[in-house]
C-alpha cells in the first residue's frame, strides 16, 4: 500500500530541484516578486488541502473560504485580544480555529455528496461571512482587522528594517519551509492506506462500504485535514497581506480556491500546487493590467473548462509522453 519505490524516487527527483530553485530564487529576483511567490505558495497550500476533498475524495466544496477565513481571523483575534504577535502562536491559533470549524461543518456536510454537499458547504461558509460582516465591533466589519508583522521563532523584525524586505526574505523562507513540509505530509497522506481508502470511496462509494469502510468517517477526517490545510494557508496569508476582511470569507473566494485547483488540474498531486502559484500571477497581472480583471479570469476559466479540463498539470502529463514518442 505504500508508494512504490519507483514513484517515490520519481517524486523526489522532481521535488528536490524545485525545492532548490525556490530556495535560491529570492537571491536573484526583486523583493516584490518574492512576496508574489510567497502568496502563490500560500494559495498552493490552500489548494492542496482543498484537493484532498475534490481530487481524492470526490467532494466539491464551495465553502472553503470558511477555513481560510477562520485561519486569518484567528490570527487577527490573537493580535487584537491577546496582544501576541508571535507567528508560532498565530499558527497554533489558526490551526485550532480552522480545525474546530472544519470538524463541526464537516460533521454536518459529509452525509451528503454532489450538489447538496456543495450548497451546504457554501451556506455554512456564508453564515461565517455574514457574522464577520455584521459583528463589526468584534471583527471590524467590512474594514477588517489589521495584523502587524509577526516575530518569527521569537525574533521580531529588526528595528528600522523595511517591512517589504522582511516579508521577501525571512517571512518567505518561513512560508517555504511550511509549504515543503505541507507538501510532504500531503504526499504521505494520499499514498497511505487512508488516502487509498478515500480514492476507493471516490470511485465507488457502495463497494467501499461493502468492504467494510465506514464511509462518512473517512470523509469527515478528509474534510478536517482539508480544512486545516486551507486554514493554515489563511494564517500564513494574513501577515503578508497585513489585513483581513470579510472578502476572504465570502463564497466567491471559495470559487477562487476551486479555480486554482482546476487550473492546475485536480486529478494530479502537483496540479493544485501549480494552480495556486499560476493563479496568483494571473490575478496580480490581470488586476494591474485592467480594471476588468474579473472578466479576464472568467474567460480563462471558461476556456479552461471547455478546452483544457485536465488543467495545466493534467495536460502536461498527457503531452509529455506523446512528445517523447514523437521525438
Amino acid at each position, binding site marked *: 500500500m505504500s508508494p512504490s519505490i519507483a514513484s517515490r524516487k520519481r517524486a523526489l527527483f522532481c521535488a528536490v530541484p524545485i525545492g532548490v530553485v525556490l530556495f535560491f530564487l529570492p537571491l536573484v529576483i526583486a523583493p516584490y516578486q518574492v512576496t508574489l511567490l510567497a502568496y502563490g505558495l500560500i494559495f498552493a497550500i490552500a489548494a492542496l488541502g482543498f484537493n484532498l476533498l475534490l481530487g481524492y475524495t470526490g467532494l*466539491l466544496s464551495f465553502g472553503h473560504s470558511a477555513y481560510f477565513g477562520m485561519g486569518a481571523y484567528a490570527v487577527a483575534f490573537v493580535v487584537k485580544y491577546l496582544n501576541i504577535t508571535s507567528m508560532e502562536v498565530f499558527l497554533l491559533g489558526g490551526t485550532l480555529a480552522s480545525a474546530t470549524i472544519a470538524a463541526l461543518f464537516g460533521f454536518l456536510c459529509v452525509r*451528503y455528496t454532489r450538489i447538496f454537499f456543495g*450548497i451546504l458547504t457554501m451556506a455554512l461558509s456564508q453564515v461565517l461571512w*455574514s*457574522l464577520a460582516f455584521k459583528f463589526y465591533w468584534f471583527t471590524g466589519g467590512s474594514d477588517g482587522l489589521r495584523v502587524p508583522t509577526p516575530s518569527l521563532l521569537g525574533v521580531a523584525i529588526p528595528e528600522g528594517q523595511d517591512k517589504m524586505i522582511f516579508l521577501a526574505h525571512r517571512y518567505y523562507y518561513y512560508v517555504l519551509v511550511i509549504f515543503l513540509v505541507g507538501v510532504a505530509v500531503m504526499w504521505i497522506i494520499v499514498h497511505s492506506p487512508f488516502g487509498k481508502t478515500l480514492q476507493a470511496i471516490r470511485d465507488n462509494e457502495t463497494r467501499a462500504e461493502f468492504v467494510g469502510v465506514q464511509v462518512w468517517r473517512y470523509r469527515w477526517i478528509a474534510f478536517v485535514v482539508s480544512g486545516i490545510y486551507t486554514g493554515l494557508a489563511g494564517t500564513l496569508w494574513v501577515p503578508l497581506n497585513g489585513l483581513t476582511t470579510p472578502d476572504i470569507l465570502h463564497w466567491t473566494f471559495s470559487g477562487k480556491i*476551486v479555480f486554482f485547483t482546476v487550473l492546475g488540474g485536480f486529478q494530479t498531486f502537483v496540479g493544485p500546487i501549480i494552480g495556486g502559484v499560476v493563479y496568483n500571477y494571473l490575478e496580480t497581472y490581470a488586476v494591474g493590467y485592467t480594471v476588468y480583471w474579473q472578466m479576464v479570469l*472568467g*474567460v480563462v*476559466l471558461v476556456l479552461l473548462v471547455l478546452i483544457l479540463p485536465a488543467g495545466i498539470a493534467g495536460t502536461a502529463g498527457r503531452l509529455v509522453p506523446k512528445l517523447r514518442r514523437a521525438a
Partner: protein
Amino acid sequence: MGHVRAVDDLLVHLLNALLYASVLFLIAGGLSLIYGVMRIVNLAHGNLYAVGAYATAWAVGRALGSGQPSLTLYLLLPVGAITAAALGAILEPTLLRPLYKRAEEYQLLITFGLLLILEDLLRLIFGPYPLSASGLYETVGSLSIGDSVYPGYNLVVVVVGGIAAAALWALIYKTKFGVILRATSQDMRMASALGVNVNRVYMQAFTLGCFMAGLGGAIIVPEQGAVLGMGVDALILAFVVVVIGGLGSLEGALLGALMVGIVREFGIAFFPEVELAILYFMAAVVLLIRPAGLLGRPV
C-alpha cells in the same frame, strides 16, 4: 391608539416581506426551473437578475431624458426581462450545451466563470456607478397606512410577482409546453425517446429561467437602483430560497421566497446583526433535516 399603531406597523412589515418575496420568487423560481429541467446549478443566475435591472434602468433613464409620459415608462419594465432572456438564449447553446455529458463540477465551474465575466461586462457597458430608475418609483405616489406613508410602487411589484407566479403555474400545468417540460425534467432520456427535442426544451427552459430573473431585476430596479455586485448577493438569497423550498420545485420556490421574505423583513427590523446569518442557518438546517427541501422530490 398604541394598539392600532402596532397593527399598522405589522401591516407595513408584511407588505415589505411580500415585496421581498415577490422578487425572490422570480429569481429563485428561475434558478429552480433551470435546475429542475437541466440539473444545472447556474451560479451566474444572479447576474442575469442584475442584467435585467441594468437594462431596465438604462431604458427608463433614456426615456425620462426624452420626456416620455409616465405611462410609457411602464412599458419599459419588460426590457430587462427580455434582455436577460435573450442573453440566456445565447448562452445555453454556446457555453452549457457542450458540458451536459461531463461531470457536474465542470458545469458549476463554467457558470462561475460566466459570473465573473458578466459582473465585469455590466461594469464595462454601464460604468462603475449605480443606475437609477426612480422616475418610475415616483410616478405611483404613495398611500398612508395609519401614520406611516407607504410607497405605492411596492404594491405594483407585489402584483407583478403574483401575476408572474400564476402565469408560470398555468404555463407549466396547463399547456402542452408545460407537459413537455415536466416530462423532460422527470426523465430526459425517455422524453427524448418519445420524440421530444431535448436540446430545444433545455434552451427554452434556460431562457424562461433567465426571463424570470431579468423580470425580478426589472421590477425592483425603480425602488433599489442597479449596482455592481447585486447579482452575487441575490444569488445567495435565491440559493437559500431553493434550498428551503426544494431544488427544482416551483411551489417550493414560492414557499421558500415567502419564508425568506418574512424572516428577512422581521430580521432587519428586530435583530439586524444576525439577519443574514439566520437565513443561511435556516438553509443549512433544512438541508440537514430534509436535503430535498420542504417541497422537493426526495433525493
